[in-house]
């Protein structure tokens, strides 16, 4: 019965959602496809953040920097060296990952809110460096992607991007599902829960934090490549924004940090909401979405720790156990 129950409870809903996601562009108009696509991308970024922010418990507010480093790396490789982003995205991950390791080293000394402040400062630094090295980055003018063709991860319509980001989001979920029961994943959560006890079972706490931050930044960097390929144009001030860093963290915390599904749940709620509000008020009230994230984040942290996924799991868990008792 146990296995059967697992099948009906987990696999069938997952399969239904998968099919809906896969056939969605066939029935919806391009506008809706574009919104859902962006939700997938932000879901992936939130899942990337989750590695160090959720599982690692290090609240980063600088992930826009890794996004930008990834975007710049693959775009420079594409525009200046004619290297396809299908290859360049891995280099993007490596560059962002290296920067993530530096942030991880900082986390050894900076705890809690001080770490968050440190990551904000780090992102500002990255922005300044991108502006400064004009020769490579184009400085404040940025870089326009002028190539074309699927071999360069560039498409004429939104639909291919939709599938690209759909696959990216699924890969993110599968990665986190594997990660959370892996040796390293369990070790990282142990460090989050109690550093002294983690050392006491043989975990190298420093190493876990640095590698955790590097993995998180690596994934975010790959997301940066995909993002750049979609918007075709990158500039320091549109990529390295505190708003983006906050959005990444807020999506994950609202959806449920430290779980494979939190990022997707959060993104499906917050991304359409912020797009809608920005379209409505964007011109009038600058930074509205930042305020929105602040408020939502506060409510979730105070009222529903564990996010929406945590809430659902508790509610459903209770319902199911009640049923079993009769």
């Amino acid at each position, binding site marked *: 019965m146990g296995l059967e129950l697992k099948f009906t409870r987990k696999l069938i809903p997952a399969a239904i959602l998968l099919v809906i996601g896969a056939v969605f562009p066939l029935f919806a108009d391009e506008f809706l496809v574009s919104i859902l696509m962006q939700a997938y991308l932000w879901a992936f970024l939130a899942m990337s953040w989750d590695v160090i922010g959720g599982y690692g418990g290090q609240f980063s507010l600088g992930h826009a920097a890794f996004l930008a480093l990834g975007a710049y790396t693959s775009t420079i490789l594409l525009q200046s060296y004619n290297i396809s982003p299908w290859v360049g995205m891995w280099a993007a991950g490596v560059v962002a990952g290296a920067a993530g390791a530096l942030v991880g080293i900082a986390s050894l000394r900076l705890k809690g809110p001080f770490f968050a402040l440190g990551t904000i400062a780090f992102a500002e630094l990255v922005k300044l460096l991108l502006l400064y090295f004009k020769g490579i980055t184009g400085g404040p003018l940025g870089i326009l992607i002028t190539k074309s063709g699927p071999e360069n991860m560039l498409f004429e319509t939104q639909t291919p991007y939709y599938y690209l980001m759909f696959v990216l989001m699924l890969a993110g979920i599968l990665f986190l599902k594997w990660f959370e*029961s*892996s*040796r390293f994943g*369990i*070790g990282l*959560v*142990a460090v989050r*829960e*109690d550093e*002294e*006890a*983690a*050392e*006491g*079972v*043989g*975990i*190298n*706490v420093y190493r876990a934090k640095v590698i955790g931050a590097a993995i998180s930044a690596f994934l975010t960097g790959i997301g940066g490549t995909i993002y750049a390929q979609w918007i075709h144009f990158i500039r320091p001030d549109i990529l390295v924004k505190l708003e983006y860093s906050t959005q990444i963290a807020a999506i994950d915390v609202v959806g449920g940090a*430290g779980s494979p599904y939190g990022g997707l749940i959060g993104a499906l709620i917050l991304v359409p909401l912020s797009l809608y509000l920005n379209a409505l008020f964007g011109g009038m009230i600058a930074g509205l979405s930042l305020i929105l994230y602040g408020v939502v984040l506060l409510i979730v942290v105070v009222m529903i720790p564990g996010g929406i996924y945590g809430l659902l799991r508790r509610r459903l868990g209770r319902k199911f156990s009640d049923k079993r008792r009769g």
Partner: protein
Amino acid sequence: MLEVKDVVKRFGGLVALNKVSLSVKERELLGLIGPNGSGKTTLFNVITGYYKPEEGKVYYRGDDITGLRPHLIVKKGIARTFQIPKPFGRLTVLENVMSAAMYGRKAASRSEAREIAMDWLEYVRLKDKADVEAKALNIVERKLMELARALSTGPDLLLLDELVAGLNPSEMMEVVKLVRKLVDERGLTIIMVEHVMKAVMSISDRVFVLHRGAKLAEGSPQEVSRDPKVIEAYLGEPIQV
């Protein structure tokens, strides 16, 4: 097996350990007792690398392990439990204990770690709680989980910090028997810090008494419990009539 030599540990002006020397032989169960604040936990923290002593050395099987970081000490084969249990709250009990097997001395694979963890959970009779989140455990279960977790690192020397404090008398005697069996049947060497005299005296091979950061007495449980200095340290000076 373990040799602590003239260890001094100060916290500001307070001398927590003042030239403490202690040695433990293979397969021995040493009881470490002393009034509150006498330096027992500090000594544990020095041995397991959480504190670096200002003076003195700690040798384990001939190697100088003074000031080695805690996770490296675990890999040498020394494990400990904490006075106030430190579960990884949002991991399951099984994952808690598995983490120790995966990161401990043997660096077991996931499947090996699972087996090791289940064996020790069975040993401490916590197997039916394996899939429960650790934060849901009560205090007794937390202590048993800590014991299983420490054992899963694969230690030869185990340091138990007030394992039975807070347990009721029957639970206490159960756990005490488990500890004794670890020495007799599994060949471990154990140092146990304990406040409950009955627990220490009934199972220790030898007892070491700390008082105000220095050694007060050492010997068999019988010798120590008759020692006037020990009685005085615990009960105060005898009343002169």
